[in-house]
């Protein structure tokens, strides 16, 4: 058989796979053929040295798909109530996953530790709001399917039964990126230590992150507060809210750490950034204790700023200003690390510890 025929057969036989998987497997085999021919074999000899195309494809497909992520199963008997929500559960081996992408719509998302090597996603679906979870390649996806039943009102009447929220259980050492978005629910994340890039977003819910480590974390909420504790990133650590306060305690960023809110205060206890630490609010007071970074930038308007910076003072090059109010920070310019603290209206009461 010649190379073109063999590759054609192989390509056909691999059609069970997703495009990415199929391309990768196909090119691997094609490269084998090319390398064999380069080492002196004729086309016919090189093809003969490979396993038969259909057999090879079958073996590859079974390995790539294994262990199969269980198809989403009903977690319990469908609850017949006014909502007709069905609880579903999808489980898959953690080492299959490099990415998790959850789009939850109108439910809260709770991410916590599992007690085994599996990732388990529990979610709800119903005729008017069809949610589908699946594993595609190395990505776990949850999303709402567009249905034609848009004219139904979204009643979430509770007649008892389980709380309508998405739960994701992950092993402590899961190495994957995580995206979790919801509109009308909060997001809580607690436990995993080896996530890569984490993106969290909610419109009308709060956000709570505890005891988590990852490469980078970027989180935003519009109408909710943010509470973060015992959390560490290697790169970007960024939390933003429009209409809520921010409370951060015992956190560390290997690069920049940014906290921003428009209409809320910020309370910080013991927070460190290896590069820049930037905290800003438009309309809220800032209570910032135990700040440490290579450069610090603090901004608010119409509100007081109080707290402490890891000293001594001589390390810092201070730029501090308030229009109306006492300022405890001296205009000391001889340090190396920039410390910039400004408010338009309010006292600045910061000291070095």
């Amino acid at each position, binding site marked *: 058989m010649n190379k073109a025929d063999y590759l054609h057969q192989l390509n056909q036989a691999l059609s069970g796979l997703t495009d990415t998987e199929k391309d990768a497997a196909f090119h691997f085999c094609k*490269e084998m053929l*090319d390398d064999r021919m380069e080492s002196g074999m004729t086309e016919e000899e090189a093809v003969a040295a490979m*396993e038969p195309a259909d057999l090879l494809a079958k073996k590859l497909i079974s390995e790539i798909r294994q262990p199969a992520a269980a198809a989403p199963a009903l977690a319990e008997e469908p609850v017949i109530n006014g909502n007709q929500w069905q609880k579903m559960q999808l489980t898959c081996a953690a080492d299959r996953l490099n990415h998790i992408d959850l789009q939850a719509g109108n439910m809260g998302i709770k991410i916590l530790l599992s007690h085994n090597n599996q990732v388990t996603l529990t979610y709800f679906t119903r005729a008017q709001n069809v949610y589908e979870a699946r594993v595609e390649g190395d990505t776990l996806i949850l999303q709402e399917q567009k249905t034609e039943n848009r004219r139904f009102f979204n009643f979430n009447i509770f007649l008892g039964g389980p709380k309508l929220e998405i739960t994701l259980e992950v092993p402590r050492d899961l190495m994957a990126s995580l995206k979790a978005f919801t509109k009308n629910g909060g997001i809580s994340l607690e436990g995993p230590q080896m996530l890569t890039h984490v993106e969290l977003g909610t419109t009308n819910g709060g956000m709570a992150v505890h005891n988590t480590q990852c490469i980078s974390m970027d989180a935003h909420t519009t109408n909710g507060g943010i509470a973060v504790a015992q959390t560490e990133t290697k790169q970007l650590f960024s939390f933003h809210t429009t209409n809520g306060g921010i409370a951060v305690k015992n956190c560390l960023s290997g690069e920049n750490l940014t906290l921003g809110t428009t209409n809320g205060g910020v309370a910080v206890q013991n927070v460190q950034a290896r590069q820049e630490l930037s905290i800003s609010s438009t309309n809220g007071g800032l209570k910032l204790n135990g700040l440490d970074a290579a450069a610090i930038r603090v901004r608010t308007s119409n509100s007081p700023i109080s707290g402490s910076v890891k000293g001594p003072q001589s390390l810092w090059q201070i730029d501090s200003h308030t229009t109306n109010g006492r300022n405890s920070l001296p205009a000391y310019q001889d340090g190396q690390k920039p410390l910039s603290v400004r408010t338009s209206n309010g006292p600045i009461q910061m000291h070095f510890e």
Partner: protein
Amino acid sequence: MDAQMKRGLLEACVLSLLLKGDSYGYLLIQEVSALMPISESTLYPVLRRLEAAGQLTVYSREHNGRLRKYYAITENGKAQIQSFLKEWEDVNRVYTFILTATTKEENTHE
């Protein structure tokens, strides 16, 4: 050989071959074949799993007008080799015990 065990051995083998330098599919198949039977359908899933586990990385380089995929070991991969060796110390202990027990058994029944 037990399939799971074979997979584990293959993974550790491939990682060890990458210790001495980056390599590519055909070269790996030849080098592993010297130790244990292997074909494309066995090597590819091993490489895929090692990449998913962050124990090797893949990159493409041009070779004679086509793109060839090269594999490089990572720090995780190096740590995995150590892990494997440690596990097999335990296997070896049990093996020795079993071997000793069977030779004793032969001796007492003479």
